[in-house]
């Protein structure tokens, strides 16, 4: 489903971020990408939703080469991928409900569909009572749950979570991870970039280890080990 083929990325100023990365991710997989800060995890994920372009190599999503997409095609491609970040990236002037609904609005979904799906997903993520609060009025864990709800509301094929638990306490962290596992059980491919060792060990699914822009280990039932 997702293929990274000979990917290299050099940032301006001759800073290499990725070096000849080859990786295949199948539909329905749960993949943890681990490594130190600066190992190239985020850069690799950014290529999937076309926020970065590789210096050389190709990224394929459902057999389509992402670098060949035209600018106007990118929004449609991004609607297939749910994204969650460490800093949540919620719109501060919108309530949690509006933030989640916004993802459906931009995908030009019908209002009736939005009204049905948004409360459902807020309920699944455990945000039922806080739906009318603004992001700055809820905890970091609740913000992340809202971000997760937004990423999932369009039922994407792939969920990309880039350090989603980086700012959270252990209980909220585990809440989020359980949600990710549940989503994966329903068939969504989940790619989780993290350097949280206990979490990766507990998940016990495929682990890809990166170091200095290279994939140094790829195990089907791996543990966090650098």
């Amino acid at each position, binding site marked *: 489903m997702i293929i990274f083929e000979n990917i290299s990325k050099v940032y301006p100023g001759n800073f290499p971020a990725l070096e000849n990365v080859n990786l295949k991710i199948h539909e329905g997989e749960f993949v943890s990408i681990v490594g130190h800060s600066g190992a190239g995890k985020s850069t690799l994920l950014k290529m999937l939703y076309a926020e970065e372009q590789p210096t050389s190599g190709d990224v394929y999503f459902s057999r389509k080469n992402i670098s060949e997409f035209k600018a106007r095609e990118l929004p449609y491609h991004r609607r297939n991928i749910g994204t969650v970040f460490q800093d949540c990236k919620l719109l501060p*002037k919108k309530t949690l409900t509006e933030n989640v609904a916004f993802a459906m609005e*931009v995908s030009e979904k019908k209002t009736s569909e939005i009204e049905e799906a948004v409360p459902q997903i807020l309920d699944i993520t455990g945000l039922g009572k806080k739906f009318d609060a603004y992001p700055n009025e809820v905890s970091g864990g609740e913000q992340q749950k809202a971000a997760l709800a*937004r990423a999932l509301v369009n039922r994407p094929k792939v969920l990309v979570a880039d350090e989603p638990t980086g700012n959270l306490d252990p209980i909220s962290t585990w809440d989020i991870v359980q949600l990710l596992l549940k989503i994966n059980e329903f068939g969504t491919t989940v790619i989780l970039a993290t350097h949280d060792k206990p979490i990766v060990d507990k998940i016990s699914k495929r682990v890809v280890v990166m170091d200095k822009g290279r994939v140094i280990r790829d195990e089907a039932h791996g543990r966090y080990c650098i």
Partner: protein
Amino acid sequence: MLCKVTRTFKAGAQNFFRNGWLSIATVGVIVIALFIVNVQIAIMFANNLLLNAVEDRVNISVYVNTDVQEDEVMKLRHEIEQYPEVENIEYISRKQALADFKERSKNNETILKSIEEVGSNPLGAVLNVKAHNPDQYETIASKIDQSSFSEKVSGVNYLKYRDIIDNLNKEIKANQKGAIILAVTLSFIAILITFNSIRTTIYSHRQEIEIMKLIGASNNYIRLPFIWEGVFYGITAAMISVPLTYLYLQFIGNEEVTNSILPLSNARFIKIFLTEYFMKNLVLVVLFQCTFGVFLGVFSSIITIRKHLKA
């Protein structure tokens, strides 16, 4: 499409109301921009009124000798009327001239007595010549001077008032030119300030733009709420600047204030013509303000957002 327009309109309205102080500041800047333009237009308009009024009053009087008969004066009038520069001629007969003179001197007994002592009418007929524009008086005066009937004319008062007319003309024209330069410069500055203010507003939303891109919003979907926001800024600013301009006109309609601020203007003119004109054309004024305000808001939004969408 309609769904997109409604949704982005709602988002724009939400941004406008939820941005609080940022919206108030941006609207404030546009109000100042519109008001500056309004004041400049009002000054130019007042100058125009004044120029027209002065031009209306300026004419040259051709004094005909007392021994020239009325039918000859009429021929003379007809000849002067043929000059392309002449707009119209007012004829004042000898009788009328004497009556006017007596009326003007009714408080001066010495003059009235002297006239009675003379017995006959000492005044000749007068032709008040009005030109199409004040520049042409010199030409008319010299044409009369060089004409075949010049010996029938005892005097042309243009020569006497020539310097006054010329100076007034120059002063009004210089004032007008100055007002236009000032209007253009101030309007340009106002536009730049508005542009910069909206740029700052959108810059403060740059993270939101980035988020919108990430969740798959098309460029149009990102752009439209900001454009609607620009429309709201413009309309709100226009709704404030129109009453503000009215108050300003009332303020400069006060004679003491006007005479100190606008030495060439005349409070009565402003009060009567400008305020009346403003009220009569209120719909047009509001429409102009809205259009200009919306143009400022939308244009600045489009230019700024384009930069963020490219990045």
